[in-house]
């Protein structure tokens, strides 16, 4: 079966793009979950859907519309969730509004638009150029994460101390928002806007059940993401299941197992 997959170039492309995106999403996820920003990822994916709908309506290149819209929204969401006590509801409002705009735009754009692939992704139809963009953006994300690993750690763990010792915490929070936006735009091709936030949240959630240090949590998160993606990918191929949903189900199974391990360890 594995040989079979590698004989199709579009499957190989999907596999590599998915691995890159999963890896970068999982690394960001640790900081996002620890900073209670998981909902921002979810909100952004809905904004991404709205932007995709509009790009379909305008017959524009999807990436050209989605990347700036999602990046701007990332900063807006970060601001509202940090400032106001109603941050949660603000995110929910923005999410559903963007979803509504997207649905209308798609329906106006007509029957040629594949609503299904916007919502649930279409990893197998990733074009060559999309694949290259996704890989490049993921590599940028992974490299920036590694380069600023310690600063991001300090900003997440204790922003007051970090600020007092001269770390520009605002800058690293902005970096986090920017990278999250990029990962979501790229990941939406694979899992669609409804499931992409699972690529960000699940690995971190699993890792935090098992790891006790920041380094181990980061590593487990990355490994879990790769494992879930590969397993989900092969399962969907073997049983002709939707790829995105299969990956999320594998994540879910791993999460339940990790919870069980933690439970047993505690007793």
């Amino acid at each position: 079966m594995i040989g079979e997959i590698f004989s199709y170039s579009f499957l190989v492309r999907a596999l590599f793009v998915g691995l890159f995106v999963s890896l970068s999403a999982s690394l960001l996820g640790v900081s996002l979950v620890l900073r209670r920003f998981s909902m921002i990822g979810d909100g952004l994916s809905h904004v991404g859907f709205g932007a995709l709908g509009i790009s379909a309506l305008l017959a524009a290149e999807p990436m050209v519309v989605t990347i700036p819209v999602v990046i701007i929204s990332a900063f807006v969401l970060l601001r509202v969730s940090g400032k106001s006590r109603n941050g949660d509801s603000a995110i929910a409002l923005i999410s559903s509004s963007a979803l509504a705009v997207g649905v209308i735009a798609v329906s106006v754009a007509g029957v040629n638009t594949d609503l299904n692939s916007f919502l649930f992704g279409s990893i197998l139809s990733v074009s060559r150029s999309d694949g290259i963009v996704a890989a490049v953006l993921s590599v940028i994300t992974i490299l920036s994460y590694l380069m600023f690993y310690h600063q991001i750690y300090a900003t997440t763990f204790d922003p007051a101390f970090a600020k007092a010792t001269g770390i520009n915490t605002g800058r690293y929070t902005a970096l986090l928002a920017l990278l999250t936006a990029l990962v979501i735009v790229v990941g939406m091709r694979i899992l669609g806007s409804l499931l992409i936030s699972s690529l960000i949240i699940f690995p971190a959630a699993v890792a935090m059940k098992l790891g006790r240090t920041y380094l181990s949590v980061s590593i487990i998160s990355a490994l879990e993401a790769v494992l879930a993606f590969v397993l989900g990918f092969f399962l969907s191929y073997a049983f002709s299941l939707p790829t995105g949903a299969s990956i999320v189900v594998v994540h879910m199974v791993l999460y339940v197992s990790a919870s069980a391990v933690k439970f047993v360890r505690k007793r």
Partner: protein
Amino acid sequence: MILIEGKNLTLGYEGQGIITGLTFSVSEGDYLCIVGENGSGKSTFVKTVLGLVEPLKGTIILSGGLKKNAIGYLPQLSDIQRDFPSSVMEVVLSGCLNRHHRLFGYSAEEKARAREAICRMGMEEYRNKSFQELSGGQMRRVLLARALMATEKILFLDEPVTGLDPGAASELYSLLRRLNESGITVMMVTHDIHPALNDARTILHLSHNGWFFGTKEEYFASDPGQTFLKEAGHDR
């Protein structure tokens, strides 16, 4: 030698002054306690000294080789995430980021300094333990070690004994006393009268109707000092 000097400061936020005309100084080797009721501007004072907010009026001058970003700050424990997965070593190492210039990872020298700081706080056996599993007193020691990574000159603690039992609190105080005796300047915001009575050399009292800055002896002879003693049940 004076390390920190504030002249005719007005402190506050959003344009609202809380403290006006404040003048104080911290000399090398000093042990300064900052006391006063809630809402009297202690947190604003902390933020201003750390350079996180600008004073509304006046300036704070750092001298004697003390640089901005080199104050060993110990925040309130409530500001730190308790369920954060992190080893003691990771926490302490993050203290040297203000002088960190490598692109990836920490240098061997930085790691050695972190180990030394952990030892100095008597926490060597916990080096690879998880920070979130430590007791409140142990967490404070780890955060002290981190603060020592950021500075060799001055520690600034914000209510360090909140939530500690009396034993752990007095252990922390004697640790601070030893650090102070070894030449490190200590500044501490506190509600507890004991460090003010036992260890402090100078006191800054902030209140809604003014402030007092002076030596411990002057302070406890003054009205606000007498009131503090009375409230803490030490008036006899």
